[in-house]
């Protein structure tokens, strides 16, 4: 009971918040690249953000409902239709048994999410449903798979406004373990440089492209491998920055110039290849203020939900809708 995958792109996998608490064994948390999108999808379906969703890169696929269910779409927007009629992103929609959902190429951003009512209900491994392919957990979704639906409920036709995290832009970073080992002139030049997200990016790291000289710290080669965290910006031996992502290894031996603040991490992972990124150091105190406000906003995420107003131009068969009954009932 759920969604049957008829055909799909090459990079679809089930994700949730990942696996915390295993750093000592060498396991990074993994999970959804854009956890803001998990919160948005969960708010749309009025369920826990711990529910598993389908993460899609590049393109989605064709999915058929085997039962009546509700879906929500969040993260990087993708061209999407239900039984051939376009439907909007950042919204929830009802599907009836036999309906076909078609999710096409990405329109903006990198990671799109398909949520189902109750979450995708596969068996957890090590207390999570997240695929972590580099360590052999889970698998890519393929044609013929069935995504089991956890719970049936009616939360269709709701939408949520989203932010501007899908086109690159300014990213705030805080000083971290080795920031002071980079001379001030290198740190300044790092802030002044307009970077581009290199196409070489995955769930482990995102390479940054730039036109100037590299950013090597002369003492860099002497660092003993130590714990790293997603959002850390490593400078490799040739001076190229890589932003570590959610499936990075637990330890790293390259010096890190700074760490992306949690609130801007979704922007980093969603920035499409070729789009510009610029970094700005902020103090730890300022970052704590920003994160405190962001958490308060997340607590209130459900207040941002509004009814989905349908555009009459997109309604295929206008006469089949009963457009005036509500107006009369109000009188």
């Amino acid at each position: 009971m759920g969604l049957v995958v008829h055909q799909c792109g090459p990079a679809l996998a089930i994700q949730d918040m990942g696996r915390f608490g295993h750093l000592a064994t060498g396991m990074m948390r993994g999970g959804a690249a854009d956890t803001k999108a998990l919160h948005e999808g969960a708010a749309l379906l009025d369920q826990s953000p711990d529910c598993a969703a389908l993460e899609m890169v590049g393109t989605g696929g064709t999915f058929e409902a085997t039962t009546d269910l509700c879906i929500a779409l969040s993260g990087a927007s993708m061209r999407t239709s239900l039984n051939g009629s376009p439907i909007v992103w950042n919204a929830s929609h009802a599907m009836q048994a036999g309906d076909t959902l078609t999710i096409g190429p990405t329109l903006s951003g990198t990671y799109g999410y398909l949520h189902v009512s109750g979450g995708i209900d596969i068996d957890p491994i090590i207390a999570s449903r997240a695929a972590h392919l580099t360590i052999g957990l889970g698998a890519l979704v393929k044609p013929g798979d069935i995504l089991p639906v956890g719970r049936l409920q009616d939360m269709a036709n709701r939408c949520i406004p989203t932010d501007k995290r899908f086109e690159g832009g300014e990213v705030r970073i805080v000083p971290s373990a080795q920031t002071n080992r980079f001379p001030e002139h290198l740190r300044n030049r790092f802030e002044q440089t307009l970077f581009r997200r290199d196409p070489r990016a995955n769930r482990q790291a995102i390479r940054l492209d730039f036109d100037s000289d590299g950013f090597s710290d002369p003492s860099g080669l002497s660092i003993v491998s130590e714990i790293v965290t997603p959002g850390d910006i490593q400078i490799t031996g040739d001076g190229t920055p890589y932003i570590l992502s959610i499936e990075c290894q637990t330890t790293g031996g390259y010096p890190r110039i700074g760490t992306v603040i949690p609130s801007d991490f979704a922007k980093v992972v969603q920035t499409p290849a070729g789009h510009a990124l610029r970094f700005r150091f902020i103090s730890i105190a300022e970052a704590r203020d920003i994160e405190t406000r962001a958490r308060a906003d997340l607590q209130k995420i459900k207040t941002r939900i509004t009814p989905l107003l349908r555009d009459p131009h997109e309604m295929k068969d206008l006469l089949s809708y009963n457009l005036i009954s509500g107006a009369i009932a109000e009188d």
Partner: protein
Amino acid sequence: MAHSDNSYPTISNVGLDGLLVTFAPSLSDDANRAALAFRAHIETLSWSEIQESASTLVSAFFRMDLVEHDPDAMKDKMAAELSAREWLDAPLPQGRRRWTIPATFETSAAPQLEEAAKLAGLDPHVAQKELCDHSLRVLTLGFAPGMPYSGYLPENWDIPRQSQLINVPAGALVVAVRQLIIFANPSPTGWRHVGQTAFQCFRPNTDTPVALRPGDEVRLTDVSKAELDRISATDLSGNGGADWELI
């Protein structure tokens, strides 16, 4: 491997994810022991701010929410524990395990034993005996879940990594820079392939996905390739014929 650099230990933040305590600027056995002992000490205090901890080669990490908890206050709290004693001299924590892991060194399963032995200035048979005679400590787990970096082998094993990468199978024993690794998965590596075990570092579908812990001792015991094949074929636990005792 003693050192004297009084700017250490250092305490620094890792983003807003926690505090890192580093005991030495370069690889050293006493700094690894200090990291193990200090992490174990902090764990016994059960601070509510700490979500998890880990130790790596020369440092210990304490994950905590530095949005909620003031990093400067937490650094002061950590510094007070650090100054309570000389951690480089601290005894290793209790409750560790000593593992005895069967390994074969027959040439077909140890393609670079001879080359590594030569670099270590030894005859292959003596090299194999040295690898088995030394009880090594799991310095840290990393690269892949459950994969042990263990050390330290004698000074003559301070052999460099090779620039040419080779592919090794799961359970492969590889050496470089006085350390020995059991590989978790088939992987390319720049370390030299000197033997083979049937030990599974990561067993995700079991109650104990990772059997080894940092600080555990590892001793290899020489078996024939036929015996290792027999163990591989019959072992359901993932231990690959290994036994352990508490130390």
